[in-house]
């Protein structure tokens, strides 16, 4: 079969089984757009800003586990992608990004809409390619998919000069079934001797703790994690990125850890004597002050990326490998030992944990005449029976979802943790809804974040993605205001949101439904009404208590157990 470069691109996507491609046209990709014309197999989603395309593809990827695919033109098209690529990179999300480039003969001449896309994106991709020979185009696309989805996943960019896609030049097409790169061989199975050492240490533990992260979700190891945790009877916590891998409603789950983690999770981390970390990267929002992190613990760390191990925290038993096979093998070895964790020590440990838990650190004022944002999230959880796909933007609202929406399933909680990209939530939700049209998909956002990619409301109409948008409108960049309250003596420098649009009218202007909710008693009915409108995008503008803060909080420079709790909770008094 002889194809042009442009046709090769489209055919390769078909051979790869790509359902959706999120893109925006321009000069350098017009040959490719022409090849997309009139075919139905790969559905093109026309976004309103290239950043939106990357977040949509990213949302799609995180919800499905399949790579998200993006197409944009050279120059400004490519530079508009950078935020989204960096977002995917920080959270290890598999994307394949195709960009047009000026024709090979003029590269380097400051041609119209030329930029060094490979150079600009190099630090925020897993790998990137510039295709200089059309005979290598198909193979390069195959490599891109392979690299993006194996090992520690991540975005891969393929920059394609316009002459390479010339419709007049046809060459034989062959899409390789597999590729081998001599320089890239990600580890799958863990070293059995290391796993045995880990099993021994685990069985010795008196105050064990499991700390699970995004790698468990990325590695589809949720089942293995559940089985292992239940067999051991150990307490478990999760990072922001790992929520849902272990059921949020389970008794053994202590809630999220870290800067805005629960009291019990952070205290148990601090006091534990053996820590089993899996698919988590000891981020500074988790560890707090490094030299006081888990001071009594011997640490086991399972991670597919050797560079995540002992990067921030020196660990005792490193295990490089995919979470799924390693956790399975660990359980096999534990069972084979004929032993069980020390029952007496474990029950004493649980008693201690229950005392911490009894503090009920997430309680808030339920009598208020103002809408409490926590209440909205709790009600959302109830109305969606804990089963929705929830995306978010960045700020307080994001933390409240992490704390109050108890995720019981993996891949349902989709947010930007590593880069913390405002503007992520809405396009990500559209990407998820395209993948799962029958499921409830909600974007929980803030009035500042939502405005960063608001233009995608138009995409949502065009592709009929009736998501629900829950805007926790505190008329502040709440997270910024909170930091200013705590560390800058309430000097609220440029963190208010003045001149806000009328979101109801805005939603309507885009062809959707808008609702304004101002009283606590209207929260539940509004949510129920919104979710009953199956085929409508509903924008729910909740006017919330504008001074609410996210608690607990480990402030900068503090150790993880030195949490700032809300003024109405005192561990000294209550746990005495």
């Amino acid at each position: 079969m002889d194809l042009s470069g442009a046709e090769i691109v489209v055919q390769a996507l078909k051979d790869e089984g790509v359902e959706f491609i999120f893109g925006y046209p321009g000069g350098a990709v017009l040959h490719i757009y022409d090849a997309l014309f009139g075919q139905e197999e790969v559905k093109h989603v026309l976004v309103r800003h290239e950043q939106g395309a990357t977040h949509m593809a990213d949302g799609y990827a995180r919800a499905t586990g399949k790579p998200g695919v993006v197409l944009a033109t050279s120059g400004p098209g490519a530079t508009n992608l950078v935020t989204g690529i960096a977002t995917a990179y920080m959270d290890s999300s598999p994307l394949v990004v195709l960009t047009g480039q000026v024709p090979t003969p003029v590269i380097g001449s400051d041609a119209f809409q030329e930029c060094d896309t490979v150079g600009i994106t190099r630090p925020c991709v897993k790998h990137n390619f510039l295709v200089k020979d059309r005979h290598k185009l198909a193979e390069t696309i195959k490599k891109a998919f392979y690299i993006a989805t194996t090992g520690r996943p991540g975005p891969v960019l393929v920059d394609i000069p316009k002459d390479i896609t010339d419709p007049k030049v046809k060459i034989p097409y062959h899409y390789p079934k597999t590729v081998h790169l001599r320089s890239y061989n990600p580890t799958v199975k863990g070293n059995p001797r290391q796993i045995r050492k880990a099993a021994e240490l685990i069985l010795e533990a008196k105050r064990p703790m499991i700390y699970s992260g995004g790698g468990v979700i990325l590695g589809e190891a949720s089942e293995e994690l559940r089985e292992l945790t239940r067999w051991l009877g150990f307490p478990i916590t999760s990072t922001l990125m790992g929520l849902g891998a272990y059921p949020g409603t389970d008794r053994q789950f202590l809630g999220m850890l870290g800067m805005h983690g629960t009291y019990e999770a952070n205290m148990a981390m601090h006091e534990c004597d053996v820590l089993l970390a899996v698919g988590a990267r000891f981020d500074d929002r988790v560890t707090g002050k490094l030299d006081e992190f888990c001071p009594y613990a011997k640490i086991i760390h399972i991670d597919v990326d050797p560079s995540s191990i002992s990067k921030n925290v020196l660990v005792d038993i490193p295990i490089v490998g995919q979470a799924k096979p390693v956790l399975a093998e660990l359980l096999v070895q534990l069972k084979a030992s004929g032993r069980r964790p020390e029952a007496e020590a474990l029950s004493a440990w649980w008693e201690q944990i229950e005392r911490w838990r009894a503090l009920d650190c997430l309680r808030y004022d339920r009598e208020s005449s103002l809408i409490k944002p926590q209440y909205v999230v709790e009600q959302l959880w109830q109305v969606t029976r804990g089963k929705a796909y929830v995306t978010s933007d960045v700020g307080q609202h994001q933390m409240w979802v992490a704390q109050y929406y108890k995720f019981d399933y993996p891949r349902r909680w989709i947010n930007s943790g590593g880069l913390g990209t405002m503007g992520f939530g809405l396009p990500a939700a559209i990407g998820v809804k395209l993948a799962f049209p029958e499921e409830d998909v909600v974007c929980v956002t803030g009035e500042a974040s939502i405005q960063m990619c608001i233009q995608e409301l138009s995409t949502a109409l065009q592709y009929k993605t009736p998501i629900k948008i829950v805007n926790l409108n505190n008329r502040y960049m709440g997270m910024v205001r909170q930091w200013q309250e705590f560390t800058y003596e309430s000097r609220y420098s440029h963190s208010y949101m003045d001149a806000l649009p009328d979101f109801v009218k805005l939603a309507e202007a885009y062809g959707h439904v808008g609702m304004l909710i101002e009283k606590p008693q209207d929260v539940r009915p509004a949510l129920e009404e919104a979710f009953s409108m199956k085929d409508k995008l509903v924008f729910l503008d909740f006017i919330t208590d504008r001074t609410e803060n996210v608690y607990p909080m480990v402030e900068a420079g503090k150790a993880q157990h030195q949490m700032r709790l809300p003024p109405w909770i005192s561990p000294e008094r209550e746990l005495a």
Partner: protein
Amino acid sequence: MRHIISLLLENESGALSRVAGLFSARGYNIEALTVAPTEDPTVSRMTIVTRGDERVIEQITKQLNKLIDVIKVLDISEADHIERELMLVKVRAKDQEREEIKRLADIFRGRIIDVTASSYVIEMTGASPKLDAFLANLAKDWIIEVVRSGPTGILRGERGLHL
């Protein structure tokens, strides 16, 4: 501690900037870097001299290994190895200094490879500290120009860094 890290990488445009970019992005220091193709023209050998404590060097090796274009990484300073650097020095050499410089070059096993009435070019190879020592022995105002390749290195014995 000073470390010499050897790597084999794909001989592709962009591979060098990935390595250099990694060092600058992560704030690692590069004292010297040399690179050239090997007997297999698709593979380049790079030698990087860097400094850092054990944990930094461990991260550097891991991060280098993570680059898709990098095939193999070895910290050769961890093992018994030979280090060599090439240096070309142009010196002002007149009157009685001509003899003195020549003697000094001989002591350091340098070779004079270009001669004019008023200058020499001296070629010298050796471990970097030896080259430093030679320069230290030349009077400042003799030196016109110094060109150093940066160190390269190889393991002693049969063990090697190859595909």
